[in-house]
């Protein structure tokens, strides 16, 4: 057992690294971008992140197509006589894949079979509706990533927020306008408190945030389940189902584009939240401190930043943003009463959204819309083509994997690697970064092959 004590020497900081890293390394992400802008146009295009992102999506869709084709019954049938008539197999595969992806597109963006534009554009508004909670929760997760906290607790934060906002929404009778605001604030506050527990425990006791968030997810789930089946708490009166009553009309987020569409005010709220998080991270003193702690907590501590407080504030904000996602669910999407599955997997999708968005506010915003489109289209594909919506999950995770590994995508498409200038600049900090590095895709980009 004596050997086993090697790694438990105690939480020694790494003093060498602190002194090795100059203060300019604290916010290094601006400089390398500018350098690459001076290179040739073609090189710019072939090595740009936008192209890589598009190619990553293409690769993931190809992988999804292969899965769809392999599991299609017509394809399997025609594979039985492949050598006598190979064209049948190809036709069947093409039909399966094109049918799937065209219904995905029509379910997510524009329905060509609709009679008029108003009906045709409905899928796009559905996409935005699905994207709304994804963006909100994704912002929360991304914010905590930037502080170096690996927060997987969006699910629990959403559940608690749903319960709080929902309770205010159906139980309190307040005037129009005020009711909605109070309900939204109650939800955000509840989510912030639930996230704040994590920050507090991390700051005061050093408890590992991964464990605490996982545990709080389960605790929130069972707590909500209990409240939903207990009369007088959240359960609808006169019902035996674990489900809450419907929201009062005064607490429901109003429709943005009229009753034809499901898109509600929540989308605008989330847009404002995105701008706020952008402002917070990039323009405010608090955001600078957040990023400094995320890049290197030891250096931040030396620089006089109260690291522990940053953990607490970041988790409060992250919880509030995830809470906003929960609010959107109960007051916007499912207003007829909620059950314990109200989070609908958004809490975990938020992690992938944050990763895909590179933990930047606008990146999360567009990643959320992309995932919202996949979700809206996935339901259409499931209904129309009988392809399980789980294929969407596969495609989404592949996209994140490919985007995180630019060298892989480059080698698949035989693209040139970008110049070695960036390598020396960022390689060092990539090595010394923490395991839960805030800007994962950046550090991965740093060491181009």
């Amino acid at each position, binding site marked *: *057992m004596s*050997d*086993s*004590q*090697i*790694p*438990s*020497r*105690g*939480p*020694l900081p790494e003093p060498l690294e602190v002194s090795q890293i100059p203060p300019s390394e604290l916010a290094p992400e601006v400089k390398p971008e500018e350098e690459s802008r001076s290179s040739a146009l073609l090189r710019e295009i072939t090595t740009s992140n936008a192209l890589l992102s598009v190619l990553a999506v293409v690769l993931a869709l190809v992988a999804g197509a292969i899965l769809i084709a392999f*599991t299609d019954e017509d394809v399997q049938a025609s594979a039985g006589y492949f050598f006598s008539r190979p064209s049948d197999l190809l036709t069947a595969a093409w039909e399966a894949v094109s049918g799937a992806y065209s219904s995905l597109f029509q379910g997510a963006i524009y329905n060509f079979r609709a009679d008029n534009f108003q009906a045709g554009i409905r899928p796009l508004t559905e996409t935005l509706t699905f994207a709304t909670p994804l963006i909100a929760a994704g912002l929360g997760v991304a914010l905590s990533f930037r502080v170096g906290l*690996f927060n*997987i607790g969006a699910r629990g934060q959403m559940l608690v927020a749903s319960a709080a906002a929902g309770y205010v929404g159906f139980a309190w009778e307040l005037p129009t306008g005020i009711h909605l605001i109070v309900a939204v604030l109650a939800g955000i506050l509840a989510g912030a408190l639930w996230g704040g527990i994590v920050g507090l*425990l991390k700051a005061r*006791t*050093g*408890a*590992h945030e991964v*464990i605490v968030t*996982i*545990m*709080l997810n*389960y*605790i929130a789930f*069972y*707590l909500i*389940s*209990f409240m939903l089946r*207990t009369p007088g708490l959240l359960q609808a009166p006169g019902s035996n189902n674990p489900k809450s009553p419907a929201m009062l009309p005064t607490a429901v987020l109003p429709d943005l584009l009229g009753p034809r569409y499901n898109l509600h005010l929540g989308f605008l709220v989330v847009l404002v939240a995105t701008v706020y998080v952008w402002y917070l991270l990039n323009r405010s003193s608090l955001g600078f401190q957040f990023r400094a702690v995320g890049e290197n907590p030891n250096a931040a501590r030396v620089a006089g930043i109260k690291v522990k407080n940053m953990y607490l504030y970041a988790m409060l904000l992250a919880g509030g943003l995830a809470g906003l996602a929960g609010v959107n669910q109960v007051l916007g999407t499912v207003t007829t009463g909620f059950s314990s599955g109200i989070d609908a997997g958004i809490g*975990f999708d938020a*992690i*992938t959204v944050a*990763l895909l968005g590179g933990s930047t506010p606008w990146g999360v915003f567009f990643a959320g819309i992309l995932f919202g489109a996949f979700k809206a289209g996935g339901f259409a594909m499931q209904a129309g083509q009988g*392809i*399980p919506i*789980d*294929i*969407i*999950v*596969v495609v*989404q*995770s592949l996209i*994140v*994997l490919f985007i*995180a*590994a630019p*060298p892989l995508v480059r080698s698949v498409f035989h693209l040139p690697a970008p110049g070695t200038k960036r390598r020396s600049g960022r*390689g060092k900090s*990539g*090595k*010394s970064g*923490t*395991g*839960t*590095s805030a800007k*994962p895709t950046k*550090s*991965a980009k740093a*060491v181009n092959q």
Partner: protein
Amino acid sequence: MTTVTHTPHSTPEPLEIVRAKSWKVPITLGVFVVIAILLFVVLGRDGTSLFRLSTAADVIQIPEIPIPTREACAVIVVLLAILAALSAYLVQSGRRVPIALIAGFALLFLLAFLIWASAGATLPVTALLVGTIGLSVPLIFGALGGVLSERVGVVNIAIEGQLLAGAFTSAIIASVTGQPLLGLVGAMVAGTLVSFVLAAFSIKYIVDQTIVGVVLNVLVLGLTNFFYSKVLSPNAELLNSPPRFERINIPVLSQIPIIGPVLFRQTIIVYLMYIAVAAVYFALFHTKWGLRVRSVGEHPQAADTVGINVNGTRFWTVSLAGALAGLGGAFLTLGSVGAFNKEMTAGAGFIALAAVIFGRWDPIRATFAALLFGFASNLQNVLGIIGSPVPSEFMLMLPYLVTIFAVAGVVGQVRGPAAAGKPYIKS
């Protein structure tokens, strides 16, 4: 916790005498004493609790033990208060609270809870413990996989994915071949494949390991759900009806009261689990290979300078870890449930991850942490049958609450392998 304990004391330094008094343990224990007083005294229950220690199949039958509920609870609460006061005294006088005291406190609290909850009923202790093993096996295998890969410096969030892949593959292979042993091999291969992806992305492409892990979980979940809906459930007879392992009674040992039925009337996967725990512990701490693995996880540069192939060691150790986690998945289909279901791991991989950190990256401690989770889940099942005074949701919440208390109050700032999560780039 173990901040300054084993610095050599050859030359006494004045700095060593000054120690920060940590009041976390006494405060945590105090909170639990208050809970105990509220629950067991204020809300005390009358009656007699019967503890049944034997099963019908036992050769040696132990009579059921009757315990007067209120009196026993009162005695234990007093003992708990004494232990909490003792810990406060130890901290006050500048000494460390021994882990045995905390463990004793936890056991007493548990005993009081069992007595309190089973007032006026019979608690089948053996069934409680047998179920505990059953629920813990996937957690233990997952935790072993987690310990191995984190010790070599690769953060393994993908345990959930490895478990799920193992469960899925073992169900299909065992169904098609009719050989559960082949299913076991298939599960190991599947877990290894998930690990290959984790290793390739985190070692070759230097993607943040946590990201790869999270994404792999989602990917495996999506793939297994997709194939389940599209392929497995239409052909359930052919593809998803694996034969289950039979229980093997070990002669003599299985006749020991309590221990026998719990530990030695199990399936082959459980026996493999015993071997795996011992093997991982021995290999990590008593072999040359283990020393290399730990050195790569602690200080890859140093390991490289003495000629250890850092990335190669990482790759193969992570693969081995995946194989172990895959075995845990196989237990779900071939040992307990008997068929693959969508999302059947239900977060077990994350619990295993918590067990790894809770167990401070030590295979034995992680195993005990996993057993604790298994026990708490099964306690809820058993108390649900005999009529629990606590709403079932709170019982289900219990393991997670206890973990938070333990992590925040007792374990505190744990430190994993120093280089875990950091890619090694040879310069």
